[in-house]
């Protein structure tokens, strides 16, 4: 039963997530909120693993979620669910590729879909930021504003932001490098 549900949830994700791997993220949050199969913390860890291992991020995340939810069969079923709509849609389009690319209505729909996709990913990113950089629970318990901020984490985020965007020698590096460095810093500084 859970396998059927997994397939259906990931079929929906594959059908509506436009704009590549990261675009599946808001759907994964939505699934977590509705089903409770995994937590937001686990999802953040899955993103890290998916970015640091071979294979498309969207597929990696589907496999991970499927495995956490229902073991190896879950991993396979979630992945198949994710790619089934892709295969069907592409097989349909492949017959009329040129017409599809030049269709004004398709282009107009994407004019609206692109900012939608960015908005959804940004909102999912906001959830990770809340989780990783702020102590919302501690703040709610103590009521002190200073408890809200996780200063160690915010400092690391600032350093990473500068390194990935502005330091010429570092910004072209693969994300796996920054993920591993963050893991080491996390252990050394006892995050």
């Amino acid at each position: 039963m859970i396998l059927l549900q997994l397939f259906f949830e990931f079929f929906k994700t594959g059908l509506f997530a436009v704009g590549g791997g990261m675009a599946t993220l808001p759907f994964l949050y939505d699934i977590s909120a509705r089903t409770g199969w995994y937590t937001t913390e686990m999802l953040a860890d899955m993103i890290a693993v998916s970015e640091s291992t071979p294979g498309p991020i969207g597929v990696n995340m589907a496999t991970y979620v499927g495995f956490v939810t229902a073991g190896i069969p879950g991993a396979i079923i979630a992945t198949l669910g994710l790619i089934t709509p892709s295969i069907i849609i592409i097989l349909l389009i492949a017959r009329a590729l040129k017409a599809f690319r030049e269709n004004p209505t398709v282009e107009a729909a994407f004019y609206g879909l692109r900012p939608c996709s960015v908005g959804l990913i940004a909102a999912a990113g906001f959830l990770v930021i809340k989780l990783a950089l702020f102590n919302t629970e501690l703040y709610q318990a103590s009521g002190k504003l200073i408890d809200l901020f996780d200063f160690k984490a915010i400092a690391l985020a600032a350093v990473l932001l500068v390194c990935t965007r502005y330091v010429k020698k570092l910004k072209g590096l693969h994300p796996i490098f920054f993920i591993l460095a963050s893991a080491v810093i996390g252990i050394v500084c006892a995050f």
Partner: protein
Amino acid sequence: MKTLWELFLAFARVGVMTFGGGYAMIPILEREIVDRHGWATEEELMDYYAVGQCTPGVIAVNTATFIGYKLAGTVGGVVASLGIVFPSVIIITLIAGILTSFSEVPAVKSAFAGIRVCVCVLIFNAVLKLWKKAVVDKATLVLFLGVFLLSVFFSVSPIVFVVVCAVAGIVLTRMGVKGK
């Protein structure tokens, strides 16, 4: 049969060699599909990639389906797609299995707390990169803000936003708002 097996293997190789998907995949696809097998020209590959980007689903899978279909019809499309996801399923299942048994170890917890900070930055960078192509005028800025704020403060299914924004894109273009 031989072609199907070759298709599966070729895309499994692309799956193993691609870290992170997206643009990282292009040079590897070129080497495997254009140079090594001659299954598609560079232009065709770019076309597939462009359409794969703007259709639902994972770009790598979409591109694989295109090339598989071109070579061996519907079955080819399915086989190529299964090939590209095959390594992921194996590798992630192994890692997930190992990590789940070690997730309570304090050092692993600290490592992932650090990694989560990095994930924030990676998502932020991804958003900035996509932003340039997506938010091009006032109307798209409004759509972005609307989707962002509504999904942060209310639990609305992302499907609703996707459908509404696709329709909005068509209506706004017809109204001639685009580009202003």
